[in-house]
């Protein structure tokens, strides 16, 4: 076992003179808006997705306020419908899907591969503009009156009956899809063609494997959503019956096509989270990830199996019981590669010298919450239980455990872990730990009661509910308040650290990986000279030896 202690880490003292890096290389608004540097584009994405996260969070908080009391006393049911629809659309299409790939992936993937940039820098910039155009549609929808179909746009309500801004919203989702396709395409080609000398596939960090799997899902699933939304818009504009049963269409076909994208989209959201977790576990246990190849291939297995399970969203939509049985079985299979990851991360921590910095606290939160989310996913994949809890708060709790407890926890872990690399400054550790704790407590208090209230029958998507559900709903709203503080704090102290944070050296964590072999923040071309990789993934002694031999700083 290649366990090392923290003393072995080459903690290189930060140099005092200002070095040229990607941040101070050029100045001015245009040097950002026209940049082709993947790192600057990542920063632009960071600001954009944070903005949408705040918008989505405010919408969620308004809903939680309404649900404090059983009566629908704060918003009308129509307004409430718009709130949960916009919350879903903003969080999924404009935050969760781009968050980790477009921010952390964009910044790190080329550096981890030892490349100067992504394969297609102009497409990368274009993807940000496309994202912003799609986002503008979303903002226009919010300003001009909202949309009330639910984020799933189920037909025929969305095409024939809803008189809200369905066309603009689907247009926004359609356009944003192309931005993730371009990002995925860029990642795939870069991983295939731009690896540094010596960097074989099995020397790649697990982050890259997971991003690669994510990119495959993005490339193969997103276009199907695009064509589905095209058909939806055609139906809505022409008033023909593609999906409207009254006009001869088939609404279940819409659901098939929608979930053919939107179930894999769950893996577009969680696989990048797993990517971050693998890196952080290796860094804070100071060990090689247990079963590297299993973890690497389990990402591909999740990407593959993710395409075969979509109809488990439709068990009560009138599909045949035999196909439901097959989809149920296949859904159970996804648990296998997911469990491989969880067990291997846990096995990596076994007898390791774990250090308890903020990213690691988020990692532990992720592993626990993702496990709860995954296991309740098995409940929902089982035919009988799904019929019982379908469309209840149990489902709401389940997917928030995956997406908030999983993806956002991982995103927070990643932002903290790579913050010194991105900005060259350390965040304040004590505040980081406090916010990690608040997020964990607040999250569980928000969503665990929803499992209970859903199991006893509270349906989702209503602004009023039976009085006996109030206690659990009050707990949930209280939790949401704590969670909000937990999310606001990092925005404050991370901003503070930009000016006042301790200067970070090249490798503040003593971690393994090419991103820790270049300066913080990295120079514009990522490395002063092209790195040559001579070590296996997460091989601490070999990496540290190579660093000692090559570092001139």
């Amino acid at each position, binding site marked *: 076992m290649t366990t090392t202690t923290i003393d072995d880490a080459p903690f290189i003292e930060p140099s005092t003179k200002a070095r040229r890096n990607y941040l101070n290389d050029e100045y001015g608004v245009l040097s950002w808006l026209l940049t082709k540097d993947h790192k600057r584009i990542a920063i632009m994405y960071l600001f954009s997705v944070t903005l949408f996260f705040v918008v989505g969070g405010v919408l969620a908080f308004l809903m939680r306020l309404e649900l404090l009391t059983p009566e629908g006393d704060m918003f009308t049911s129509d307004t409430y419908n718009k709130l949960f629809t916009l919350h879903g659309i903003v969080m999924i299409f404009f935050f969760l899907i781009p968050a980790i790939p477009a921010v952390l992936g964009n910044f790190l993937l080329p550096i981890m591969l030892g490349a100067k940039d992504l394969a297609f820098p102009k497409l990368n910039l274009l993807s940000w503009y496309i994202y912003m155009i799609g986002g503008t549609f979303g903002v226009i929808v919010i300003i001009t009156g909202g949309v009330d179909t639910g984020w799933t746009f189920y037909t025929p309500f969305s095409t024939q009956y809803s008189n809200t801004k369905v066309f603009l919203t689907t247009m926004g989702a359609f356009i944003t899809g192309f931005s993730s396709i371009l990002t995925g395409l860029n990642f795939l080609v870069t991983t295939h063609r731009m690896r540094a000398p010596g960097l074989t596939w099995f020397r790649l960090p697990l982050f890259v494997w997971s991003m690669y799997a994510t990119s495959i899902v993005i490339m193969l699933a997103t276009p199907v959503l695009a064509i589905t939304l095209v058909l939806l818009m055609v139906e809505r504009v022409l*008033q023909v019956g593609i999906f409207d049963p009254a006009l001869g269409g088939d609404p279940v076909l819409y659901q098939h096509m929608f979930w053919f994208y939107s179930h894999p989209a769950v893996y577009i959201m969680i696989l990048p989270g797993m990517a971050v977790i693998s890196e952080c576990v290796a860094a804070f246990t100071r060990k090689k990830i247990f079963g590297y190849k299993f973890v690497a291939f389990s990402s591909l297995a999740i990407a593959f199996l993710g395409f075969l399970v979509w109809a488990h969203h439709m068990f009560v939509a009138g599909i045949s019981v035999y196909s439901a049985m097959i989809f149920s079985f296949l859904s159970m299979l996804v648990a296998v590669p997911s469990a491989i990851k969880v067990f291997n991360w846990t096995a990596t921590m076994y007898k390791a010298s774990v250090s308890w910095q903020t990213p690691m606290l988020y990692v532990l939160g992720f592993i626990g919450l993702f496990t709860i989310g995954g296991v309740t996913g098995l409940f929902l994949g089982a035919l009988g239980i799904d019929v019982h809890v379908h469309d209840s708060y149990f489902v709401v709790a389940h997917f928030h455990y995956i997406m908030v407890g999983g993806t956002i926890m991982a995103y927070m872990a990643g932002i903290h872990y790579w913050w010194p690399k991105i900005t060259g400054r350390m965040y304040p550790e004590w505040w980081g730990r406090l916010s990690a704790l608040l997020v964990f407590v607040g999250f569980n208090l928000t969503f665990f009661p929803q499992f209970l209230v859903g199991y006893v029958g509270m349906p989702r998507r209503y602004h009023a509910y039976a009085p006996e559900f109030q206690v659990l709903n009050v707990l949930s709203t209280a939790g949401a308040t704590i969670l909000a503080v937990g999310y606001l704090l990092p925005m404050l102290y991370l901003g503070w650290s930009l000016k006042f944070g301790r200067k970070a050296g090249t490798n503040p964590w003593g971690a393994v990986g090419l991103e820790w072999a270049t300066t913080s923040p990295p120079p514009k*071309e990522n490395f002063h000279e092209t790195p040559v990789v001579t070590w296996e993934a997460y091989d601490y002694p070999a990496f540290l030896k190579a660093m000692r031999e090559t570092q001139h700083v």
Partner: protein
Amino acid sequence: MSDVTLHHGAEHAAEPHGHEHHHPFLQHHFEDMGQQHEASTLGMWFFVAQEILFFGGIFAAYFVYREMYPDAWKAGSHHQNWQIGAANTVVLIGSSLTMALAVWGAQGARRKFTTLMLVLTLILGAVFVGVKGYEYAEHIHEGLFPGASFTYTEATPALTRGVELFMTFYFTMTGLHALHMVIGAGLLLYFIRRAWRGDFGPEYYGPIEIMGLYWHFVDIVWIFLFPLLYLV
């Protein structure tokens, strides 16, 4: 574990760095022209893969409704003029030939030949889209455009509705295809200018090659659309 295994595995590293001079079109983040060429070609293949899924979705929906309304599908395809469609198919295949010749020309730095072939490809593509527009005008004239202006009536209301659905698919599928043609035409204009300027040669013909990949893909989509909408 930490044996020094230099230049092992990464494809581009295996190739010797033959030309030390920097080609004017080598982008700074690539090691050499070979890596740049491979990256752009692979990128276009991945792009084509996502295009297949894009069109695949609407083909799947097409087949679902074809199974549901076989009579309407049959009646609908009888409103297509297969002679025009077949002639247009020949035009499109011709444009694929000129496109392939343009790639050959670019590889050999045959400046005038390449430009001529690209111009021919553009003309043939424009003819295709023009004929398509003529067909659309005919359908609209017959009241076959779905929606409020759909005034065509078949024997029974159910059949009429089915034909309207067929025509919805017809217009959406061929419309998306035509949109791809128009985008391709815009790219051709750009490459005609570059080819005339003499940008391409044995070391740098990748852009023309991936333009060709795109163009051939759009043609192949039509090869599937034509029988599904006109013949069966």
